[in-house]
């Protein structure tokens, strides 16, 4: 698995570190900072979730995450957008995804952060498999990928 993520800077098996992204994105002209984090929830569809295992098609997912950062800036008018997604088995409360946006004003920061997380959910080849407390598991059926999504 280590080989699979070689060269990937936006996908990691290690815990996500918000402080690192805040430091990386810091700029003196920014007056706004928007942060979105996705965390593992204890329940879904009436079932008790014990953990979530995230997997990805790494080369494609890495490229898409880089594109999403650039698109979030271009469309939302923010100065910088950084996104990171974690893979592997996560426990309840663990961060699975982080979006950090900085801009001059808040409207652009909110817009870019929203664009980024929606794009991550709809167009990045990442899958979550929910592990339930009764010992069963199930993949979450999300969004179908289409050719136009790869930009």
């Amino acid at each position, binding site marked *: 698995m280590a080989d699979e993520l070689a060269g990937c800077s936006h996908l990691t098996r290690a815990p996500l570190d918000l402080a690192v992204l805040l430091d990386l994105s810091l700029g003196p002209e920014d007056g706004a900072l928007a942060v979105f984090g996705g965390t593992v929830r204890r329940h879904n569809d009436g079932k008790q979730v014990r953990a979530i295992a995230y997997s*990805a098609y790494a080369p494609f997912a890495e490229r898409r995450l880089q594109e999403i950062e650039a698109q979030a800036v271009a469309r939302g008018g923010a100065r910088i957008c950084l996104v990171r997604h974690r893979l592997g088995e996560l426990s309840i409360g663990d961060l699975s995804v982080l979006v950090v946006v900085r801009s001059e004003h808040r409207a652009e920061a909110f817009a870019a952060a929203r664009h980024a*997380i929606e794009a991550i*959910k709809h167009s*990045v080849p990442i899958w*979550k498999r929910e592990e339930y407390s009764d010992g069963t598991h199930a*993949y979450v*059926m*999300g969004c179908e990928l289409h050719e136009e999504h790869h930009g």
Partner: protein
Amino acid sequence: MVVECCGVLEELCGGSEYRLRLPRFPISIAELIERLAAEQPAAREMLGRTACAVGDHIVSRERLLQRGERLVLLPPVSGG
């Protein structure tokens, strides 16, 4: 030919790599998927909702695969 199965297809096809014996090259992705569905009927419905990639780009099912190319099957995604 080895087909890479991601997400739920890994379970439905019995592993992350599925070896498919093909009669000739080039062969369309559509025909390859039909052959896979015939061998793994439990995966047929999901294969209908699956995108196909070669390298890091999604390709259409009309595309012809050459010998040695690697097809990756991407079922509906659920990141975030």
